[in-house]
């Protein structure tokens, strides 16, 4: 447990991905089974056990520490697990800086320990409470040599495996005592990690994907190789480690509906890529603005149908979309885009987001936000892995598959025919005119897939390209700047920008409409940073207000993907994916755009259908 805790501690302070990977690999190489397997499960959300309630932890501490002091400390530190870890009476004497002087001093004085072995303590109300005498430091310190006649065995430092297995089996009434024993035995970092783990709040800046990447690298594999077998495995993943270490065969997945890593595309560079590519070698189709999913169906050992919906990252989201899961009556794996359809019309991402934001899946939600999948590809059918086939063959199989399925929730993503890149540019500029019709607003751009491309997991360069629609653009004025994080931690790199609107008296004012923190080069960042420092008018902690107004201010041209209503912003609108497209050092602030520019775009996006309403102007 202490080794795992040490890892978490270092990960928590490490901002860089590669350094995190190095730490993870180092740990997975050296930690024994099943310890490392449970560590992997802890980081990938694969552990299920009875979580300890904060009130119980608090109770344990307050039996040992003056509740007033604990309360003040908790207020100060702001985190229950950390406060408890720091304040828990140390099982070992804290090695002292002042040459052993404090050894006896701390023991005698140890102002934290109630009782201090005297067996009683006077509470603040004056009554004398009897407590079990706690072990003295001298008895606790030497783990190896227990004093003769010792009644209490030396504290046993639990392994992570022991903690996980115990939590899975322990009776509720016994839980507090077990946790207290562990806290006594662990060091400070160990206590912190244990408490984070058992309260279900283990957030250490490591994604499941990163942990899997580290595991895969042990055997020289890509993370996707681990993803492929992942859903058939259980903690502590002994077969997985055996495989990546070359001690055993690749684990066979017994999961009848496993996740398969999706194939991703690269953005196309209009300036250079098209001239190198042959239009005849590619197939075009719409890129829908929903969430990429896999619908996977299969039969388990008993012949029962298993239906799974996975997100792009392999998260099982079947529970959130029971309406769609019902449609998985087949045996196969469809790659597609999850969208909300009303009256056969694809709704914008705004509408989908309203469903994604709800925690509870209610009948009303299912009715108002019916989930559909627009199928892009067929990865597997009736036990046959189709991924090695060329795209055109897979597409033919997909068309037949969807047709045979004949389910209202699943349809085909139509192809976009073209002969030249110019044809394709026309389609991209106006999808509605090229067959997308009323769904055009839900189209993000165009996908190009090499006709002979196999389905390869990850993001191979060459076979698949995405060509997004032109972003919207608006000229804004920088209003506030905030320092960035990580590599940019000292630079003012996050900019809040505004556009003009009329006050009640008609005079113009700037109103913030968004925040952008990328889109510029490092050299531009240095210039922007200098601009912020030289034009600061006010400071609010990490935020600086810069000079802005009709006569001064820096114009930032912002590119973005869309506008939605927002109650959080004073302006009432929020942008999707805003980024700095150009820095307009030359443009006067007074000539920046007005709020109406955004409201027009917003009005376009609102061509959505209200729940339950029929499409009145169908085809209009």
């Amino acid at each position, binding site marked *: 447990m202490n080794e795992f805790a040490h890892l978490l501690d270092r990960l928590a302070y490490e901002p860089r991905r590669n350094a995190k990977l190095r730490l993870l690999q180092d740990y997975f190489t050296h930690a024994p089974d099943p310890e490392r397997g449970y560590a992997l499960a802890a980081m990938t959300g694969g552990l299920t056990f009875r979580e300890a309630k904060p009130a119980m932890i608090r109770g344990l501490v307050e039996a040992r520490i003056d509740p007033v002091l604990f309360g003040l400390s908790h207020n100060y530190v702001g985190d229950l697990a950390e406060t408890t870890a*720091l304040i828990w009476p140390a099982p070992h004497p804290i090695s002292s800086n002042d040459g052993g002087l404090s050894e006896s001093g701390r023991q005698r004085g140890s102002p934290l320990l109630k009782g201090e072995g005297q067996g009683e303590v006077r509470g*603040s109300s004056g009554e004398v409470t009897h407590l079990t005498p706690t072990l003295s430091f001298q008895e606790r310190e030497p783990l190896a040599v227990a004093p003769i006649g010792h009644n209490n065995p030396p504290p046993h430092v639990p392994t992570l495996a022991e903690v996980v297995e115990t939590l899975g089996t322990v009776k509720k009434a016994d839980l507090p005592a077990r946790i207290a024993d562990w806290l006594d035995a662990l060091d400070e970092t160990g206590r912190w990690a244990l408490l984070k783990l058992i309260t279900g709040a283990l957030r250490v800046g490591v994604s499941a994907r990163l942990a899997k990447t580290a595991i895969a690298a042990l055997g020289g594999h890509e993370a996707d190789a681990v993803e492929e077998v992942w859903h058939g495995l259980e903690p502590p993943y002994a077969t997985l480690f055996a495989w990546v270490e070359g001690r055993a065969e690749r684990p066979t997945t017994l999961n009848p509906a496993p996740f398969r890593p999706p194939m991703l595309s690269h953005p196309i560079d209009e300036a250079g890529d098209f001239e190198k590519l042959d239009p005849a070698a590619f197939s075009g189709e719409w890129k829908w603005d929903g969430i990429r999913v896999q619908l996977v169906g299969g039969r388990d050992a008993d012949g029962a149908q298993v239906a799974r919906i996975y997100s792009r990252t392999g998260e099982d989201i079947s529970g959130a979309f029971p309406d769609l899961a019902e449609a998985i009556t087949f045996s196969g794996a469809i790659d597609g885009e999850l969208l909300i359809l009303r009256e056969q019309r694809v709704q914008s991402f705004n509408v989908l987001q309203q469903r994604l934001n709800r925690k509870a899946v209610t009948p009303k939600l299912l009715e108002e936000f019916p989930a559909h999948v627009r199928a892009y590809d067929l990865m597997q059918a009736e036990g046959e892995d189709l991924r090695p086939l060329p795209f055109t063959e897979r597409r033919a199989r997909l068309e037949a598959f969807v047709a045979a399925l004949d389910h209202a929730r699943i349809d085909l993503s139509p192809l976009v025919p073209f002969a030249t890149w110019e044809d394709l540019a026309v389609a991209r500029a106006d999808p509605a005119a090229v067959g997308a019709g009323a769904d055009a607003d839900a189209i993000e751009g165009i996908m190009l897939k090499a006709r002979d491309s196999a389905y390869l997991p990850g993001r191979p360069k060459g076979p698949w390209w995405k060509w997004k629609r032109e972003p919207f653009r608006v000229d804004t004025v920088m209003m506030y700047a905030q320092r960035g994080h990580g590599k940019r931690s000292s630079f003012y790199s996050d900019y809040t920008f505004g556009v003009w609107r009329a006050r009640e008296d008609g005079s113009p004012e700037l109103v913030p409409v968004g925040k952008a923190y990328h889109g510029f080069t490092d050299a531009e960042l240095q210039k922007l940073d200098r601009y912020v420092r030289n034009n600061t008018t006010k400071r609010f902690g990490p935020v600086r207000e810069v000079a802005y107004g009709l006569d001064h201010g820096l114009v930032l041209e912002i590119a973005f993907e869309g506008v939605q209503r927002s109650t959080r912003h004073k302006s009432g609108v929020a942008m999707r994916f805003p980024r700095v497209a150009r820095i307009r050092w030359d443009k006067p602030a007074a000539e920046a755009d007005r709020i109406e520019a955004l409201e027009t775009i917003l009005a376009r996006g609102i061509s959505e259908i209200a729940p339950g309403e029929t499409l009145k102007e169908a085809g209009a």
Partner: protein
Amino acid sequence: MSFSASDLLTLTREGLYCPLGGFHVDPTWPVPRALITHGHADHARAGHGRVLATGETLRIMAVRYGADFCESRQEAPLGQEIRIGDVTVRFAPAGHVLGSAQIAIQAQGVRVVVSGDYKRAYDPTCLPFEVVPCDVFITEATFGLPVFRMPDTRDEVRKLLDSVALFPERAHIVGAYALGKAQRVMALLREAGYDRPIYLHGAMEKLTELYKQEGIPLGETPKVVAAERAKLHGAIVLCPPSSIQDVWSRKFPDPVTSFASGWMRVRARARQKGVELPLCISDHSDWPDLCRTIRETGAGEVWVTHGQEDALVHWCGTQGIKAKPLHLLGYGDDGESEPAAVAEEAA
């Protein structure tokens, strides 16, 4: 009514005042006569009339404020009783920074000890704290919460050296307060066997020079040359805390951001400052030492100047010791922090 501690020391706008001696202790405003416990800027200010302090503190003040920081000065030798008006004062080491002292003030059989800032932990750059028995002990409470139990500084310095060994290509930028903490870190590094140059931000140069003149060996401590920053692979660089997040520090090769402070006990504090390698090294007493010190002075009453006074006052109550917070303004509102005198874009 008999003579009591509150006759000996009162509170004025400028801070603690001794009417019988006609002097203030660590006043936050200019006064005619001041006794100064130590050289940190929130305790030692410029512009007083007469100043009484240890020789080291007077020299620190001269370095910080210039030779004419007061009208006249007098050196207080440690341990020697000095008569001022109707009281006797005696300076005793406080173990906080070079020259830091507690001031015992006595009259009519009542003794009050103003401890200033103090610590009990090991520090090779100053004399260790001396327990002075007293009736009223005036204590700080910067780290006055039981979550503050400081680890062994040698282990913290080891963490830094381990990181340097692990990342020999990266510069290690260690934020440390310019007076005391920086020199303590240097001395601890030397004791741990580190003999390469320790690079300094310009803001630490003068005080470090003074420490060396006072006979504290700190080895080779060159000032960072701005143009050379990119070449300092694997170097340890000390700078004021405000500079660790500054553009200044980004010019070093792939810098590891570190900070030597008691605040590093709390993860959120480290993360807020973007610290990757927190070093828990404090120049203030941690909770066990605050409690131990109060007990050892035998004081029947404790006044708490600044910091987390609520918890310490509460604890005194549970021990049957009278205690009250003084709510003194102007002392280290941010605990260990130095005033923002160090300009952001310094050097």
